[in-house]
């Protein structure tokens, strides 16, 4: 154990390292390796596959909803613009429009 440790010390402490290594020492490495390799070679469970698909499905549904929202908003915007242009025509005239024009410009309810 070194006594002159500073945050700038860039060398591992062999005594502390050995002590920690012993404290954290895993047991039976061969069994662990075998267990990992068995798990790695196991085919994916059907539920895992479905879970993967469900993530894709949710993403696709979100995209569809987004496009639908954009389309609806665009249609509503076009309708508003059309109504507004009719109002402008009526208001911009130098002479008073005929009654029939005014009445025709009211949207049907």
């Amino acid at each position, binding site marked *: 154990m070194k006594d002159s*440790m500073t945050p700038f010390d860039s060398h591992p402490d062999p005594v*502390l390292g050995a002590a920690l290594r012993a*404290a954290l020492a895993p047991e039976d490495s061969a069994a662990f390796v075998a*267990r990992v390799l068995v798990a790695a070679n196991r085919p994916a469970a059907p539920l895992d596959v479905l879970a993967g698909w469900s993530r894709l499905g949710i993403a696709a549904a979100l995209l569809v909803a987004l496009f639908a929202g954009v389309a609806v908003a665009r249609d509503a915007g076009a309708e508003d613009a059309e109504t507004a242009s009719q109002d402008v025509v009526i208001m911009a005239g130098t002479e008073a429009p005929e009654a029939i024009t005014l009445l025709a410009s009211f949207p049907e309810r």
Partner: protein
Amino acid sequence: MLAARAQAGDRTAFGELVERYADQARRVARAVLQDSDDADDAAQDAFLAALVKLKQYDATRPFGPWLMRIVANAATDRRRRRTVRRAESLDEGYIGGGPQPDAIAERAVLLGRLRKALAELPERRRLAVVLFDVEGYAHAEIAEILGMPEGTVRSEVFHARRHLRTLLADWREQP
């Protein structure tokens, strides 16, 4: 080279990587989780995640830090998910006194105290000191693994050592 072979789909190479890094991954996971069974589960999760993400690995860079980042994340995720378990308990009376223990028992007690002292550290500090003093990674690599600035890693290692060194005054390396 081994990692590049595994990346190309060579399962034997992946097996060799597991063999090479198994103990390291288990120690790092144990530093986070403080429980050997949980640590083994987290280490296994990490190897399986690494297998899935292997295509994302940049084969021009060292494999160890890339894998240890996955291990640290897997262990942290598991710690967040798990129900609270009793940490490994130590017989405080035995540590404090009692009959004169023989060398083996004394060593076991010291290791238990060291685990307990390690558990008292914040998680990032524990990981930093284990990656530096046990696994031999450089500060810059640990910064990459833990996603923190290199200066912070140096500071974490320094504070962890200061906390742990008080326990190790009578530590003697044994064969």
